């Protein structure tokens, strides 16, 4: 039996400073998908449940809730959640498309991630205009 030459494992440079590696657009969309999901879980769900409860309980609590939501801090929270929801939803739709092999190639994947990023921001601006 001939001796099998084992490949020599060379020490390779490990360079994983995530802040210095230039991330491709799909990677940015991906990490924002995760961050927006975490935001929606930690802040979004309780704020929405609280809002639905207050706004439905009585005309008085509805008015109170409305005036609370008109405070600048809460407007900012609402805007952040709107961005989170929009980005997460659009990135999710992109995922569903990729699942059925639509836009899997490099160029379409880059383009669709740009669309997700920009469209979610544009829609968030619309929400901001509506809020202020």
């Amino acid at each position, binding site marked *: 039996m001939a001796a099998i030459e084992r490949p020599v494992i060379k020490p390779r440079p490990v360079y994983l400073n995530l802040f210095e590696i230039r991330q491709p657009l799909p990677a940015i969309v991906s990490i924002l998908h995760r961050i927006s999901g975490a935001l929606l879980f930690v802040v979004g769900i309780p704020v929405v449940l609280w809002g639905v*409860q207050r706004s439905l309980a009585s005309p008085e609590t509805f008015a109170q809730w409305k005036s609370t939501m008109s405070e600048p801090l809460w407007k900012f929270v609402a805007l952040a959640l709107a961005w989170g929801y929009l980005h997460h939803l659009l990135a999710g739709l992109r995922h569903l498309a990729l699942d059925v092999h639509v836009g899997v190639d490099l160029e379409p994947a880059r383009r669709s991630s740009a669309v997700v990023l920009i469209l979610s921001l544009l829609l968030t601006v619309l929400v901001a205009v509506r809020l202020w």
Partner: protein
Amino acid sequence: MVTNVSYEAVSAHYGWRDWLSQRLTAVVMLLYTLLVFGIVLWHGGLDYTVWKSVFANPAFKLATFLFMIAMFFHAWVGVRNIAMDYVKPTGWRLTLQFIVICVLIAYTGWTIQILWGG
């Protein structure tokens, strides 16, 4: 030669189930989002009377409940994935996951209170 490869040791086999449920719950949430968006547009904004009447509809209550359950499931799969990626010590990860489960069950109760609590 290895003829019988077992993957049991490296997989809990819930990957494909999570994959599917994450997509099904996403579609449920998408449809509900479109429904609510349509309702708001239809009424041209929401005052208390309209808002209250929308939520008085039993079908809308059920749709909302379905949305919330889908969201809680979706959140569980997502948060567990995040925990598995970043929280390496098993004890901390299980503690975090336990808390998340408790919170989501509490949210389910809260949702029922809001929808059918009078």
